[in-house]
């Protein structure tokens, strides 16, 4: 058997009361590419963060090259030769490739510590040659493509003598050719006995490049597979777990008497990759899913007038409309609960009441245009009570609330404007189970009041429980449309992955 590079034993991690990892074993053989698979919330990112020292495990042992080690900080991880390549790049655009590779470790000469540029470029060239990478070390990073940048990032990690590389969705934003180059380099690294952990939503890639795959589900390790002995279907089944619940008890809601509220006809914005068509009826809950990069958020933003349409049309109640600003969208009674509540939804330092009322501030203006603070308080308290915001102190800065309650404030902001069409982008991301249930109840309540709700989510379970219909997007295109009777976790996953 090959030598073990790293071994984890019985790793447990709690966040508050929630067990994210319930005793995971994991091992890496020297020079292999090992895929880490699992649905959202399975514990992948927690495990990675423990390996890279971002989080510390509550229990369990970590061995690196047969020596038990403690990894408490990212610095500890680096000392053991563990480096992570994340989706966001950490390169400095205005420096050359070589300068980036040696950033912070520049070779110097003389007593003054002047940077020895000759050595810098010569060493970088040697590194690039060693791994068969065709990039000039004198090129500015800003002149490189996405794929080349990621490769430079990998070289940068190797330059500080990393033996374990962690690649998190490395092919995001890469072209086919760039992916091929990346795989070539990864194979080269393998020969040089570099061990890699590979995380990707694309199973095709996993089959192409990985030697083994470990599947996590609900914080537990399900199994480790040798790639050449396993099929895609087996992997998917192991990721979803629970013998495929072939028939859910849910039946389609009768929407035959309902009018069409919103319709998109071969609609496309400059940020979307392909035109899209669908219709939503009154009281319908439409789910939209797909993996990262499938175009969900682009669609959400464009429905809210926050992207310029290139072609096609939007119809509301059968009438053609042009949504050229978020104000237009509000006028047509559309609301958007955006994906990233901290960046796009909230004014964190500001009070709960101000956050709730800002999108419909006209409601709290008196005849003279002055703000009626009593009315603001009254409306916010009323809204807060109906959404069970806890603690409900409307003068408190919203940043002091928990994630779930912050999300309720974002939702409240939009319910305040009494919308007819509510678009929710990942409405339950990063919030606890209790808050999730409350958001679901709220969505169902909106539907009962004859509102149209579009829920964009990458959590299949929640879509299957909520939606009257689910659209699956892949690379900006609708690749499937499923009714509650026919939807299964497996079908959703294989449609989104393009299996």
């Amino acid at each position, binding site marked *: 058997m090959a030598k073990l590079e790293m071994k984890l034993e019985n790793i447990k991690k709690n966040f508050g009361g929630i067990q994210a990892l319930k005793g995971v074993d994991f091992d890496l053989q020297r020079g292999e590419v090992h895929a880490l698979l699992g649905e959202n919330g399975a514990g992948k990112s927690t495990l990675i963060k423990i390996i890279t020292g971002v989080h510390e495990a509550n229990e369990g042992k970590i061995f690196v090259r047969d020596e038990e080690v403690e990894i408490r900080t990212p610095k500890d991880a680096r000392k053991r030769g563990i480096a992570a390549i994340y989706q966001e790049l950490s390169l400095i655009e205005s420096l050359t490739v070589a300068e980036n590779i040696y950033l912070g470790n520049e070779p110097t000469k003389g007593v003054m510590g002047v940077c020895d540029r000759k050595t810098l470029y010569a060493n970088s060239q040697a590194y690039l040659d060693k791994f068969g990478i065709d990039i000039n070390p004198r090129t500015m990073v800003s002149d490189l493509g996405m794929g080349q940048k990621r490769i430079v990032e990998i070289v940068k990690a190797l330059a500080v003598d990393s033996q374990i590389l962690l690649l998190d969705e490395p092919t995001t934003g890469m072209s086919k050719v760039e992916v091929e180059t990346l795989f070539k380099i990864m194979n080269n690294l393998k020969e040089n006995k570099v061990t890699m952990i590979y995380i990707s939503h694309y199973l095709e890639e996993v089959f192409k490049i990985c030697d083994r795959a470990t599947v996590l589900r609900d914080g537990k390790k399900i199994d480790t597979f040798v790639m050449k002995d396993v099929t895609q279907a087996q992997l998917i089944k192991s990721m979803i777990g629970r013998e495929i619940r072939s028939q859910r008890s849910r039946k389609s809601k009768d929407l035959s008497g309902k009018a069409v509220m919103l319709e998109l006809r071969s609609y496309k914005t400059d940020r979307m990759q392909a035109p899209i068509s669908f219709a939503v009826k009154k009281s319908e809950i439409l789910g939209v899913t797909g993996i990262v990069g499938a175009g969900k958020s682009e669609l959400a933003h464009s429905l*809210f007038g*926050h992207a310029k349409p290139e072609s096609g049309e939007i119809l509301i109640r059968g009438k053609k409309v042009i949504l050229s*600003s*978020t*104000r237009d*969208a*509000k006028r047509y009674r559309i609301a*958007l609960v*955006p994906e990233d509540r901290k*960046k*796009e*939804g*909230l*004014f*964190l*330092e*500001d009070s709960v009441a*101000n956050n709730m009322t*800002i*999108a419909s*501030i*006209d409601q709290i*203006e008196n005849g003279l*245009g*002055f*703000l009626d603070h009593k009315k603001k308080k009254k409306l916010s308290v009323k809204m807060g009570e109906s959404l069970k915001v806890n603690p409900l102190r409307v003068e408190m800065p919203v940043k002091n609330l928990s994630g779930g309650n912050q999300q309720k404030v974002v939702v409240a*902001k939009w319910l305040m404007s009494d919308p007819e069409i509510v678009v929710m982008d990942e409405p339950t991301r990063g919030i606890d189970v209790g808050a999730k249930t409350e958001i679901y109840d709220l969505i169902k309540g909106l539907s009962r009041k004859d509102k149209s709700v579009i829920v964009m989510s990458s959590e299949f379970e929640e879509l299957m429980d909520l939606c009257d219909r689910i659209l699956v997007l892949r690379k900006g295109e609708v690749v499937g449309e499923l009714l509650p009777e026919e939807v299964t976790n497996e079908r959703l996953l294989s449609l989104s992955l393009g299996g």
Partner: protein
Amino acid sequence: MNQNESTWNKIAKILKGEVGLLLILVILCVLFAFSSEYFLTAKNILNVTRQISVVLTIAIGMLCVILVGEIDLSVGSTAALAGIACAWVMTTTGSQSMGMLAAVIIGIAVGSFNGVLTVYGRIPSFIVTLASMGIIRGIGLVWTQGKPFSGLPESFSFIGAKHILGVPVSSIVAVILLIIGYFVLHKTKHGVYLKAIGANSEAATLSTIPNNRYKVLSFVVVGMMCAIGGVMTTSKLLTASPTACTGMEMDVLSAVILGGASLSGGIGTITGTALGALIIGIINNGMNMLSISPFFQQIVKGMIILAAVLLKRKNSKA
């Protein structure tokens, strides 16, 4: 009586947020009062308010720009150009109101120029207004051929140099603008919007706030305030100098920053700005009274700003 009390309560509540600044103000006053018996006289205090009226007026506009996360370095140049336009039109047409109108038009024009280039040209406002600071000063110099424009009618000195019941008219104008500014920024949706844009522009757009319109508008407001400031300066001296208000942007920015506004936007109050301007005015006045060299005064002013901001940072961390 009851009515009165609640008004006092309100004022007390507003000032409560500015304890630090009030403390600095009191310490400075005590310090200067011990050093010069003339300092704490009604006449001198009113004199201070007259001296700061131009800075205060422009600072109200600057606060709007700072709140949305931008900056305007061209305020001194704009005030000077507005003063020249006012004087020129006044002597040409013989009408004082036409002159003042001309100043306001210049203010709006400069504000729109800065705002449109920043927002739609997507150039950082620091760069736009650094350039327009030079351009506008240059226009004023070319227009007057570098010479002060003097010989304005004595009756025009009302705004800049006259008093009503012993109170300088320019102070009254500044206070009125301050009150309007207070209501707009703290009691209407416009103030809420400006702060929201500065605090999180993406969330503001998604909350259906017309970001671009408000940003341009805040530059127009500061332009108009410069116009009023320029008219005050011209009226006081009965002369429009192309080099008037040079370096004014430093005093205005100091007042706003001292008043607790954040240069990254979203944070700032009118009361803070007013206190900031008052503190700067009192430092100037007090040091003049102690005949401290103006060269040395610069150093002291800079140190006080640093100290105040450091103090504030310490407090907010605790």
